[in-house]
């Protein structure tokens, strides 16, 4: 997603995944240049599932990116959809 010039301050509050796999899925929300980082609760991956887990977050930034990873041998993930719930809260930082 291209970066917007609007620059409102957003509250990133939930990430919802549609994914399968094996192992533990680690995720982070990171600000520009990784100045601020928020580790989210791990998701236990399953090879098949009918549920799309919500992972709560509490991260206020003008923009953010989501990082997902696995760390152990023979872990894998297949993601078909990521939904990030965002709500604008302020128009900008104080001048």
């Amino acid at each position: 997603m291209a970066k917007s010039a609007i620059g409102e301050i957003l509250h990133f509050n939930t990430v919802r995944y549609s994914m399968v796999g094996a192992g533990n899925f680690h995720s982070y929300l990171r600000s520009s240049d990784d100045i601020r980082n928020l580790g989210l609760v791990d998701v236990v991956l399953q090879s098949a599932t009918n549920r799309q887990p919500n992972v709560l977050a509490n991260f206020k930034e003008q923009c953010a990116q989501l990082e997902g990873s696995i760390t152990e041998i023979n872990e894998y993930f297949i993601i078909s959809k990521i939904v990030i719930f965002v709500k604008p809260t302020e128009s900008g930082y104080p001048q």
Partner: protein
Amino acid sequence: MPITTYSSTDLFSISKTVVQLVNAADIGSGFNLNISGSDIKANPAVIAECIAQIRLSAGIDHTSPTNPIPATARIYKITVSFQDNALINASSSQLTPPSSGTITNTAAYHFHPFAYGLGFASNNWITSSDPVVAYDHGDSASGSANASFSAGHIVEAIYDFTLNPVGAFPLGYCSYSTFIANFSTARYRVDYLGTNAGVQGSFVGGTWSLGVSAIYTSTNWQMEVVWSLPSPWIAAIPSPTKVGDIIEIATDPAVNINLADVDQISFSYGTKVLDINKDLTFVITDDGAIVFTMENSPWIIEWELDTIKIKVPYGFGDYEGPVVITARTFSGSYIIGIMDIVFVDTSGIYKITPGKLNDTLYNRDGETTDVAILKPYFRTGFIDG
């Protein structure tokens, strides 16, 4: 070869603070030496001497050690040290005055201890600290003079067998039984010397009495024995070890095991065992003869009567840590050493394979090891308003 060092607390019970004197009477009362004026003229530095010989073993009990040295042990070095203390008295008195001239009547002593071995076939490997010489005196133109002095020092005797590591005692190592047999008769000698100096030529006649006595004690006995058990194996193992490193096994000349009797070298850790076998195989030649040859193992460099030289085989995977090396002969297995293997010297080409969930490292010798892919991850683009 493993060397073990035991201190006196492992080997001996040391309870006495005064060691046994060989001739206690010499020390207890000292002795007097009567000399005449003419003797002084002829030998102005007349010496009254009392000597004690002390058995090193008298103050210690080595019969019930808490951690005994095996009878077959080789002793490389023995260090015996203790503190000795002496209260010394020296006196000089004029029995009859000289018919002419004067004499300085001096009571003095020299405290001169040294260590030596008695019972050992050779003494040249024994060293000791420098003798301590203490000196004091009183003097008198006539009558008597007395001097009293306390002195002491740390005595250390080192029995070093490492100068001649090969061969039998006394040229080489000392067995524990030999050590005990000789140690029980080894003695430590202390000398206390009283002197009287006359002024030669300035007097005639006269009779003098010169005496010296001492009370001797020793404390803080310490003993350290460095020893090892003879082993048929002398293994040169790189530290740390990695796959492909060369391990050389030789026999101790004193034991002289025929390494041709060894038919297998094993590397084991946990439940995993890797073997290198000296298997004989045979081929039948065109003329029907059977020729035995050694298996062309890539890990065997040399397997001779007195030397085995092998490479550490692959198969340890990514294990790092101690690995026990064992040799097998017809009479059993013997641990010949422990190597500390490290997980290095692997390489490979990175190849993307669909569905493969790990990386594979290829050892230079063909072994493969699966490892985790280094943190696969993704990041989304920036999300903003």
